[in-house]
């Protein structure tokens, strides 16, 4: 194609890079958001205080969704390591 720039490689680096480099942190943020959803048992005292470091809000569906998100992020990390070992 172009002997100075491999456009195919460039395109792939940008697209896959966006998915892994921006997508995974975004998914991590989704997981964090889900995890912080307040639970049904009412933890008003702990909920929305500024400076509160509690991550787990207590909502069961939220925790399940968060678990899924974090699992995908971990799978992404595993894929990255596999990518190195398989001959980068």
């Amino acid at each position, binding site marked *: 194609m172009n*002997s*100075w*720039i*491999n456009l195919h*490689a*460039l395109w*792939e*680096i*940008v697209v*896959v*890079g*966006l998915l*892994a*480099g*921006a*997508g*995974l*942190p*975004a998914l*991590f*943020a*989704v997981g*964090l*958001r889900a*995890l*912080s959803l307040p639970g049904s048992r009412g933890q008003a005292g702990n909920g*929305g*205080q*500024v*400076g*509160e*470091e*509690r*991550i787990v809000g207590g909502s069961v569906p939220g925790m399940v969704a968060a678990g899924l998100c974090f699992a995908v*992020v971990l799978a992404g*990390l595993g894929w*990255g*390591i596999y*990518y*190195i*070992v398989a*001959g*980068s």
Partner: protein
Amino acid sequence: MTDCQRPGQLCRQCLDRAGSAGEPGCVGNDFLLVLVVVTALAFDFTNGFHDTGNAMATSIATGALGPRVAVALSGLLNLVGAFLSLSVAATIASGLVDTNLVTLTVVFAGLAGGITWNLLTWFLGIPSSSSHALIGGVVGATLAAAGGHAVKWHGLFQKVIIPAGLSPVIAGLIAAIGTYLVYLISRRVSEGARGHGFRIGQIGSASMVSLAHGTNDAQKTMGVITLALIANGTLHSGAKAPFWVILSCALAISIGTYTGGWRVIRTLGKGLVEIEAPQGMAAESSSAAVILLSSHFGYSLSTTHVATGSILGTGVGKKGATVRWSVAGRMATAWLLTLPAAGAVGAAGYGLAHVVGGTAGVLVDLAILLAVAGLIYAKSRATAVSHSNVNSEWTGSVAPSAPVKEVAAV
């Protein structure tokens, strides 16, 4: 002075000597080889401590990891990373210069150029590329030794210079989008919980960058040592790096990383952008992704350029974040200078060694290199940056303004 031990074989040192009149045979072959290997490992060490910040600066700045824990983790992962993949070890030199024209003296002079530039930029706290310093040094020394035809200019542009221009932009773009998304999604999470969560995430993403760094940069030195072994006739051309080379390079880069280039860490973590944990995780994820993908395509990417681009990107991607463009400008200037400056030192080193001649010439180079390194180290003590003051408020320079009393206590 011994005669060449392999007179029958193709020994480049002999060919080199044969070219210069009045010097029969080949002198100090194995001594020179040992010298080159040790210098290469010294370069690997500077590569490690110069680049600790690429992976760990943001984690240290946000407090996700304590400074000393961070450098220990990064050092360990660099060690592991160096063993993970061995496929690109020889590409750095063979793709850029004509290996048939490379002698041990050329390799030594190239390494001297790389080390000098690494130490100088470390002293100034500028995160410049160790890979470019090495490539610049080797190319400069090759130019001085054999002339322009020995350098594969097309390879140099295609594999080094153009990626060097593009990679920080791509990394910055990805990091900016990642940062924007992360803040958008987590805007309803309380600030404390968000900081806590992302500090945990940062540890994972910073670990990936460390691992990728070990894989990439340790192999560059492995490639140089392999090149020296081939140039000496110890290995056949096309041979793979022997195990002792892999092990010693892995250890050198790992120990270097553990030593921690606090001056560079400070610039990256505090000087460029005031960074929060979500930005840190976005920056490191972007860095890890770009480094891994690019090395897959065989680009001798600079992890430093990528990491710096990412950190700038997170500053752009977050509303109201402070980006110190003057610091970024200083860095960009240093990046432009890296190849020619390291090349000039490499060429001068080769010239001097050639004029003096033989092993003595290399020893003269070595003495100068040691003197310069000692001088820079001595000067750095006056404005020491260490794990205890690395996070001090940025006041416009690498050295924290007030002398920190805790230094003596720790």
